[in-house]
């Protein structure tokens, strides 16, 4: 099965109903995407499919085939971070960091659909992404900073 991941065509040997998360981590060694709960209750495994944030523990490779898959590695890198990643660093959001790739992928989706989110908008879009360290206030600040960067403000 061929998957388009971060702009590259990759081949995985997987059954169609294999969770995309498994293929990303175990077959393609893209371990930035995290396994948290496996049942779409935490958001740690969030990636983009054709631009939309989805929980990769629920999306199957069959769902992902033929679509653009973007992981945290493809969102941006150390040399050219996505504005969300840059804001996360600037605000030093992460504590343990485990949930943060999912948080950033969710935030990137939010800013695609809403360039100037309010606190309520952020809470509504991000509430499915849990953080055991309780970094929520910093996440909110970083989303607003990223939004400002993306607006060129």
């Amino acid at each position: 099965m061929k998957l388009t991941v971060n702009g590259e065509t990759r081949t995985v040997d997987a059954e169609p109903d294999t969770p995309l998360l498994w293929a990303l981590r175990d077959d393609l060694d893209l371990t930035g995407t995290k396994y948290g709960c496996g049942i779409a209750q935490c958001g740690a495994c969030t990636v983009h499919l054709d631009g939309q944030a989805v929980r990769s523990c629920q999306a199957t490779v069959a769902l992902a085939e033929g679509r653009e898959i973007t992981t945290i590695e493809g969102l941006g890198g150390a040399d050219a971070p996505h504005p969300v990643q840059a804001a996360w660093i600037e605000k030093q959001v992460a504590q343990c960091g485990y949930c943060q790739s999912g948080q950033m992928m969710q935030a990137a989706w939010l800013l695609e659909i809403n360039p100037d989110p309010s606190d309520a908008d952020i809470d509504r879009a991000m509430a499915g992404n849990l953080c055991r360290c309780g970094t929520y206030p910093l996440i909110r600040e970083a989303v607003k900073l990223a939004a400002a960067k993306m607006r060129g403000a």
Partner: protein
Amino acid sequence: MMTRSRLAFAIAAILGLAGAGLAYAHGDGDPSAAIDLVVNSPEGEVGEDEGLAAWENIYAVVSHPRCSNCHVDDSNTPMWSGPSYGEARPHGMNINAGASRIGAESLPCGTCHIQSTAPNDHPHAAPHAGLTWMLAPVEFAWFGKDSADVCRQIRDPERNGGRDGAGLVEHIVHDAQIKAFITWGFNPGGGREPAPGTMQAHLDDMVMWTAAGMPCPGE
């Protein structure tokens, strides 16, 4: 603030994910393949009493949490209920499906509830069905309403998607073909309580009720 064009982008992205992931679920011998229902047309006229009896069965289904939890009002907040938390309560995670009813304004339903006809095997996992997950249109809101209110609503084309009796019957048949939300309600998996009865019995009741002229309680 979300602009109209951004909302259009979001809706397109969400609906763009519809349809994929289904091909594998329709293979030979696949347990998740479509359900075949039979439309058993009644022989002769169906009386009002028979129609009302059929309606009570229909109401037992549509007022069950598996169905009514997503037929909510313009608060756009889906409800949750299950054996571990008693009466229905608002969906956790601050979920709001917005006026789009698919979460396009913030967090799409489809972020967690993917489109798939595969069985729902895992307790507590976000359930999935053969359609993009969404709330029913707001004019179909019947959560918490009594039998007479919901009855008048379901027979009203202004509040049932423009369907006549035949359309309501076809709605169930089509749902079974694509394993959408009615089908899921009877087989929700993951330890969830299913809607009462069977999909075929629900269809039989709809045929009887519509054949009787869609009588409602209290008339």
